[in-house]
C-alpha cells in the first residue's frame, strides 16, 4: 500500500501537514475538496510519497 503525505503550503510559505493517505486517488480527492474552500484559495498543495518500509518522514526539517 503506498503512503502519501498531503502538505498545505500557505501564502507565507508555511508548510502544514494535512494528513497521511494511502492512495493517490484519496490524496487528490482531499486536495480537490480543500481547493474548493474560498479561505484556502491562496494555499497550494503537494503530495509527498513516503519510501516503502518507512512510516514517516520529518517534514518539519524539509
Amino acid at each position, binding site marked *: 500500500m503506498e503512503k502519501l503525505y498531503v502538505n498545505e503550503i500557505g501564502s507565507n510559505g508555511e508548510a502544514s501537514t494535512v*494528513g497521511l493517505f494511502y492512495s493517490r486517488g484519496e490524496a487528490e480527492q482531499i486536495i480537490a475538496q480543500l481547493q474548493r474552500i474560498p479561505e484556502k484559495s491562496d494555499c497550494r498543495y503537494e503530495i509527498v510519497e513516503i519510501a516503502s518500509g518507512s512510516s514517516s518522514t520529518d517534514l518539519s526539517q524539509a
Partner: protein
Amino acid sequence: MRGTTPRREQGMADPVLASMVHAMGLETARHYTAATPKIQAYRDSWVKLAKFRDGPVNPQHVEVSDPATVAQQIKAKAMALGANMVGICRLQPHMIDLGEDVSHEFVIVACVAEDYERVLHGASAVEEEAMRAYAKCTEIATALAAHVRNLGYPARAHHNGASEVQAIPIFYQVGFGELGRNGSLINEKYGASFRPGFVTTDLPLVEDRPREFGVQDFCMNCNVCQLNCPGDAISKDHVVTRGIKRWLIDLEKCYPYSRLRDEYCHLCVDVCPYNVKSHPETFKAFMKERKQVGYKTPTSW
C-alpha cells in the same frame, strides 16, 4: 462555517481497513464481529441517541448578560451529568469535518475518564471500559444539548453516533493538553485515557485557552509507546500542522493489531507515563507486569 479538516471514516467505511479486510477474504473486521454483548450494547446506545442530537429550540430564550457565569453553569451541568473534564472554545473551520457546514459559534467538550485500573484486567476489559466512556459521553452530550435548547439557544450534540466536529483540535484549544507521540491528546491528569462528547451552540459563552505543560518536549525523548507498539505503527519523527507537532499513526501497521484481531489494542494509551499521575501504583504494576513479558522501556527509566 465550512469545515476544513479531512475525517478518516470509521469501521468498514474506512477505505484502508476495507481494503485490508477484503485482501484477507473477509467481509468485515474481526474486531467488530467479536464484540461482547456489553460492547455491542454500548455501540447500539449511541446509534439510538443519534436521532436526539438536535431538536426544537425553546422560543423564549434566557437573556445572557454574563457569558462567564453561563459558561460556569454549563460546565457544572456537564459535570453533574457525569463528565470529568469540560472545556469551551470558539468553533473554527479546522475543528469541523471537511465539507460539513456547522453554523454554531461555540463548541463545548465534555470528557469521561476511563477507569485506568481496568488495564490490569486485559484487552477485553479495556475495550469495554473505553466503550462505556464513549456511551456515557453520548448521554452527556445529548442531555447537555437538550438543556441548552431549553434555554432558548440552538445546540447540537456530536458523539460516536453522529458528528461533524474533530476531537483533537478542540481538545487542544480548550486547554485539555497537547498532542502526544501516540497520536492522542495527552492530559496531565488522565494521559490519553479519556473519551469525548461535544455540543455546538450559539449560547453566549466564554472560551478557555490552550495550555502547554511540556508534553511535546516529553514525547520527543520518551518513546515508550513507539517501542511497545506491536505493529510498529508509531513514527519516530514528527510532522507539523499549524505549528503543532504531530506523530501520525500508520494505519496499515496499526490495523492488524487494533482491528483485525478479536482483541482490542489500547497499548499506546496504556503505557503512556502521563497515566502515572492519576494512577501511580496501577501504572507501575502494569508496566512491571508488561516488562516481565518483554516490553521495552526507555533507557532513561
